[in-house]
């Protein structure tokens, strides 16, 4: 396997992140599942279930989901002891880019995997597919998904969450250049919660991480503004992560071998 991807996939953080995403999505659905019961699903419920992960517990866990795959990258480099050789071969700039992109890929994959598992569970537990074979299930669902915009909705939710996770993974990668794995994860979580808290009720309210991740789709407000803010946050996080890593590799940096 490609060493670039191997580094992302071999750390357990990716799978922990995916499990947490699945847990957060199922937690949101759990109340409805226990109340209505599976046999009462209607066509609209499939669409409704796909909107559920846009709120609640995913906001609490998102920084953790993002930080889990990213925190190990620099910690492993430090503990393995051959960072000097790596830097000699690829140079500081390429090293920084590599680690940042690995953090982004890890976090995005964790969210994508978790969300895919959640969608699979929602679809497989619906009475529309319970008693029919797979071919019939696909033909039943295809018009439903396209007509009710279930697929675009699911894709939009997954994309925004993955993008937000990637943003916070960059911050975690920057923090992990200076501190241990666990401390870096905690600092990321603290930064996320603080930003969320401080911006509530202020003039910068619309820059809140949660608000940007999950705009209300049913108000028909244009989504590009949210996407633009999310992109700006991502670029700022990339700047922070890159600067931290570059500084840590400098003459007085903590990562300098």
């Amino acid at each position, binding site marked *: 396997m490609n060493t670039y991807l191997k580094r992302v996939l071999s750390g*357990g953080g990716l799978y922990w992140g995916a499990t947490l995403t699945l847990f957060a999505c199922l937690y949101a659905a759990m109340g409805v599942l226990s109340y209505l019961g599976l046999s009462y699903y209607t066509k609209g419920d499939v669409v409704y279930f796909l909107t559920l992960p846009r709120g609640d517990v995913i906001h609490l866990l998102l920084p953790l989901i993002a930080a889990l795959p990213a925190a190990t990258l620099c910690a492993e480099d430090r503990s393995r002891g051959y960072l000097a050789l790596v830097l000699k071969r690829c140079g500081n700039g390429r090293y920084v880019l590599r680690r940042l992109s690995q953090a982004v890929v890890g976090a995005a994959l964790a969210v994508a995997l978790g969300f895919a598992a959640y969608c699979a569970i929602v679809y497989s537990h619906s009475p529309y597919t319970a008693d029919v074979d797979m071919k019939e299930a696909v033909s039943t669902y295809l018009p439903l998904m396209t007509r009710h915009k279930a697929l675009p909705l699911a894709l939009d939710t997954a994309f925004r969450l993955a993008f937000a996770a990637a943003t916070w993974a960059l911050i975690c990668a920057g923090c992990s250049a200076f501190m241990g794995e666990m401390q870096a994860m905690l600092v990321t979580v*603290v930064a996320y919660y603080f930003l969320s808290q401080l911006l509530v009720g202020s003039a910068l309210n619309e820059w809140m991480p949660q608000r940007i991740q999950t705009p209300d789709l049913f108000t028909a407000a244009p989504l590009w503004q949210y996407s633009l803010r999310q992109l700006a946050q991502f670029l700022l996080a990339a700047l922070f992560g890159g600067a931290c890593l570059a500084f840590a590799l400098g003459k007085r940096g903590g990562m300098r071998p």
Partner: protein
Amino acid sequence: MNKLIKYKNRLKMDLLMMLRPQALIALVAICTLQTLNLIIKPWNRDLGLGAIVYELYGGIMWYEFISPQAAAFWLLQLLPCGMAFAGFLEGSMDSRLPYTAYRFSSQTAWWLSKVAANLLGCFAIALFSGLLCALIAVLGGHRGLLLAIQDAQGFRMLSMAPLLLALLAYALQMGILTGLGMLVYLISRNSRLALLSYILPAAWSIMRHSGDDSLLMDNRHRVINWGMAKRFSQGGGFGVDTGEALLGSLALILALALLGAAVQAFINQTQRKAR
């Protein structure tokens, strides 16, 4: 006497591992920002000193539907201890283990020493946080440590008891969560798993058990609510029984410590590699 000095020095070393600069910086940063975030709000300008500390370390009120912001507030208050705990695991229970383990008469003695140090660390963090918060509030012009409470007969009185109770419950809550994390680390030797077992039960419980509906789901007996003084029953109203909360927390910390001591019998700590 020599033995006592030895124990004291070991505790001191463990506490130094726990209260490392990173943990102290996190504590100061979180406490300062949380306090400033509270006192700059116009509607909080008339709050007394004690009320501000109580607002910050007394937890959150009962909610029908808890918002992520409210849940994040309490998790944020628990995170300075998480930082200290991470340092404690890395230092005291991992990298220094091969050099210090032989000084103890048995593995159980080593474990009990760590439990005691961890508990002391939690109390120290609660105390520092409370003092720092009070200091910032004093600088902001807030005065008066006493809080107005209602006794069982309905009379209003001024007391410092709710403030001390809030800090005590907060420390015990951190003690339970770190105790669980230490036990998980003892079994798995996986620091990531230990950290998750510190954060996730708290996040899950806050989201799940914050409602005040005593018929559908009685949340008065949930562990997460034992750490929030604002959810304690006052003057016979709905809420967590104070005795149950404090004694229950202590019992749980003790149970986790004993469970760890029992697990020690099956584990050789010094020959295991941390992940």
